[in-house]
């Protein structure tokens, strides 16, 4: 399958890429890993007239801790997220999600920035970023703005990015000591979209739950921030009852639809179970740390 015709631009600096977006506006799309955009173009769901390839723009793929946050360059590949030592040490929700994204070949090309900008409700990283309270940095030719992930993800395949902006960086607050997190994903086979997945993060403070984050994948029009569940957890004792209540609230916040992967009721049940399990596992991790 061939996409519609387009003009290909390979940018070698961020300024060059932004100038191309300024020139072509909504007729242009940014090409990073291409693992979602190219399939969409082949199916003719997307037909941009200009592709701005940013793979050769230097400095967009770094991963480092800075000013209380983990800064992840938008071009960091999923494979790098899955193997990075800093992520493995202190960002368990990301470390656990990354190797579950698509398949090894897709992870070799796919990028975190591309995945978030694609805003697929079945995308894994959006939920992880919601659970971790991350923000994205959107860069345009006239400056940068930092947008919380919950405001960035607007709807199915829709974000608050302007056509002249590039998502250049993701900032994930460094979890305090005594934190844990994980990502539980149900898929029919490797490479399939999630039937349901749940991202969880949890921080203990003086024996109670200081804060928690829960993001839901594949059970709504976008990745869902289960705020009722996390509000109930904040300040509560880390008990099975508290986790069960959070599971119930997270399931209530989901709005899955029946499809080939399962019925609405089944998916809602999995949200409940995965939220409870994820919280128990994050709690165990936080207690040990």
């Amino acid at each position, binding site marked *: 399958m*061939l996409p519609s015709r387009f003009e*290909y631009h390979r940018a070698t600096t961020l300024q060059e890429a932004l100038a191309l977006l300024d020139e072509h506006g909504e007729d242009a799309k940014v090409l990073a890993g291409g693992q979602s955009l190219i399939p969409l173009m082949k199916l003719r769901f997307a037909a941009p007239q200009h592709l701005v390839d940013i793979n050769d723009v230097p400095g967009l793929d770094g991963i480092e801790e800075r000013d209380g946050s983990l800064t992840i360059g938008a071009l960091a590949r999923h494979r790098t997220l899955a193997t990075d030592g800093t992520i493995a040490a202190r960002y368990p929700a990301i470390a656990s999600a990354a190797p579950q994204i698509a398949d090894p070949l*897709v992870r070799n090309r796919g990028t975190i920035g591309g995945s978030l900008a694609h805003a697929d409700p079945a995308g894994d990283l959006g939920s992880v970023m919601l659970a971790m309270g991350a923000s994205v940095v959107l860069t345009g030719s006239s400056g940068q703005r930092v947008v919380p992930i919950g405001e960035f993800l607007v709807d199915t395949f829709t974000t608050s990015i302007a056509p002249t902006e590039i998502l250049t960086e993701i900032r994930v607050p460094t979890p305090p000591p005594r934190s844990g997190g994980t990502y539980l994903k149900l898929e029919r086979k490797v490479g399939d979209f999630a039937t349901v997945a749940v991202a969880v993060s949890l921080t203990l403070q003086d024996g109670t739950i200081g804060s928690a984050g829960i993001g839901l994948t594949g059970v709504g029009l976008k990745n869902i921030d289960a705020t009722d569940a996390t509000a109930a957890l904040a300040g509560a004792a880390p008990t099975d009852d508290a986790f069960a209540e959070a599971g119930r609230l997270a399931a209530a916040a989901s709005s899955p639809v029946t499809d080939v992967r399962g019925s609405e009721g089944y998916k809602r049940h999995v949200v409940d179970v995965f939220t409870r399990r994820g919280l128990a596992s994050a709690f165990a991790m936080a207690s040990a740390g």
Partner: protein
Amino acid sequence: MEITITVNGEARTADVEPRMLLTHVIREELGLTGTHIGCDTTSCGACTVLVDGEPVKSCTMFGVQADGHEVTTVEGLAAADGLHPIQAAFQEEHGLQCGFCTPGMMLVGAALLERNPDPSDDDVRWAISGNICRCTGYMNIVKAIQAAAKATAGAEPTAATA
């Protein structure tokens, strides 16, 4: 658009439309038909090639993106003096039935052995999890990749004595 790709060690130039996928450039412009097109939807891995040493699906990359990069196809595995260890092992262990997924499986296997010379059963299954064998001949594919690992270790005295 004129592009130059180092394919199997040799600089190859082609004039291609930007919308042409890498897999079409390899098969139709360069005449290397060992790279197969299976699903054409990023699902099956039959079109796997190595770009700068890493396995990727060539149906999900534009040819123009490979401009200035190194691509290895199944035709690049064998050396002048014989089969690549992974090819010999697939032959010996009957790692193929219909053969359609085989180029992708061998390239993924070769890339795995570059990083991990002694992969466990799980390591191999993990590495090939983006490649589908519709004959379901996975047992022998896993055996073949592990046999290639053993053969490679045996052929290198430093590895054998380590």
